[in-house]
């Protein structure tokens, strides 16, 4: 299977967009998952709903909302462009933002579940041994939740790779800048004679998605082993 340079560009861009989206989203995802798993506060259900919203909203709506807020003339986008020189609209960074938002619910869920599964009695033991709250988190909570965190990252990454609707709405479909695998496939099937090329990218997508699922499954198994101390 020979891939054309344009196809390679789309694949590498997809990988870069998904990797950046996942790496930036993970710390935020851990923080929010921890809040949801361990704290009771006013507006908790609203926060939970907001995180899950991209999962149930039409992707085109999420993309359009991103365009309105993070576009050149958007409230946030305008501020970032003027003061920090960060531009999202029609850039690969915007694709990463869209992918990050869309994959966020899938990233947060396994992390939250694994944090909930961490035995809080172990955290108490850690405190009686002299560990400050942040040390308890770093040496007990986080390592015990690590397989779940990795599983969440893998799932989020896989979702980000395949994201289409919000991305194309927000940053369009510019080869070399915002054209990911999905939007490349979309362009190809609208082109006469594009079928073979589209199929090649379909195969690549299936390979990436399957590897992600296998990886996620593997991390889940590790999690059970870890919690049983073997």
């Amino acid at each position, binding site marked *: 299977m020979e891939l054309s340079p344009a196809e390679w560009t789309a694949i590498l861009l997809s990988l870069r967009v998904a990797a950046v989206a996942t790496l930036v989203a993970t710390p935020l995802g851990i923080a929010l998952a921890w809040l949801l798993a361990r704290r009771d506060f006013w507006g908790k259900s609203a926060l939970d709903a907001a995180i899950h919203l991209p999962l149930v909203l039409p992707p085109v709506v999420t993309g359009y909302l991103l365009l309105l807020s993070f576009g050149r003339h958007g409230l946030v986008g305008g501020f970032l462009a003027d003061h920090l020189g960060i531009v999202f609209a029609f850039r690969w960074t915007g694709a990463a933002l869209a992918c990050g938002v869309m994959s966020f619910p899938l990233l947060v869920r396994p992390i939250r579940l694994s944090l909930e599964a961490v035995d809080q*009695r172990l955290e108490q033991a850690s405190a*009686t041994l002299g560990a400050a709250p942040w040390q308890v988190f770093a040496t*007990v909570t986080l390592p015990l939740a690590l397989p779940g965190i990795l599983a969440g990252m893998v799932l989020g990454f896989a979702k980000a790779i395949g994201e289409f609707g919000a991305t194309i709405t927000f940053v369009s479909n510019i080869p070399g800048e915002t054209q990911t695998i999905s939007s490349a496939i979309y362009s190809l099937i609208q082109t006469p004679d594009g079928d073979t090329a589209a199929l090649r990218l379909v195969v690549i997508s299936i390979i990436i998605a399957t590897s992600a699922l296998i990886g996620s499954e593997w991390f889940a198994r590790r999690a059970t082993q870890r919690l049983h101390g073997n």
Partner: protein
Amino acid sequence: MLRVDVTKQLGEFTLTASFVSEGRVTGLFGASGAGKTSLINMIAGLLRPDRGVIAIDGETLDDTAAKIHVPPHRRRIGYVFQDARLFPHLDVRQNLDYGRRMNHLTDDPAARTRITEMLDIGHLLDRRPGKLSGGERQRVALGRALLSKPRLLLLDEPLGSLDEGRRAEILPYLIRLRDEANVPMVYVSHDAAEMRQLATQIVLLRGGQVTALGGVKVLTAG
């Protein structure tokens, strides 16, 4: 010296305890549900009293009137739980070293050797807690608490989850600990025979109230 004078409402249950102890091993004796675990959780700082004072060697750890509550990690009070609570992701060596790392204490190989020998756990160092028997786990938990160099050691029915044979296996270690480790202990149990062998002073707890204080003979009187 340990001074406790606290009140805590736990649902329908009221726990009121007031005692001063200077014994090497203070035995907190009572039936299950008498409030023993809640009381030592308060001493450890894991549970906050509604009202009252907890002080050790003249240092106030809790004083609700003065709004003082020293968090557990600053109390330097070791705690051996009934269910050991070893960290499953760390091997025995790392579990034993945990308190030293968290308290930024300098490495003390002599203490480590002395305690691993006293508890006979030297051959377990490379194992994960999942591969230990109940008795081994409890010995490692004892060693872990001791190596954090606490000024007081709390033991919450450390033999409670073990069968008869295992109890007989651990008890001599506890007696050794009392005589050699030089750390005052609060020992919680509902087993009078255990108490007679270990405690130097008894606090008798019944229905959330201290009903007797004194030497081991209060066990027969109560």
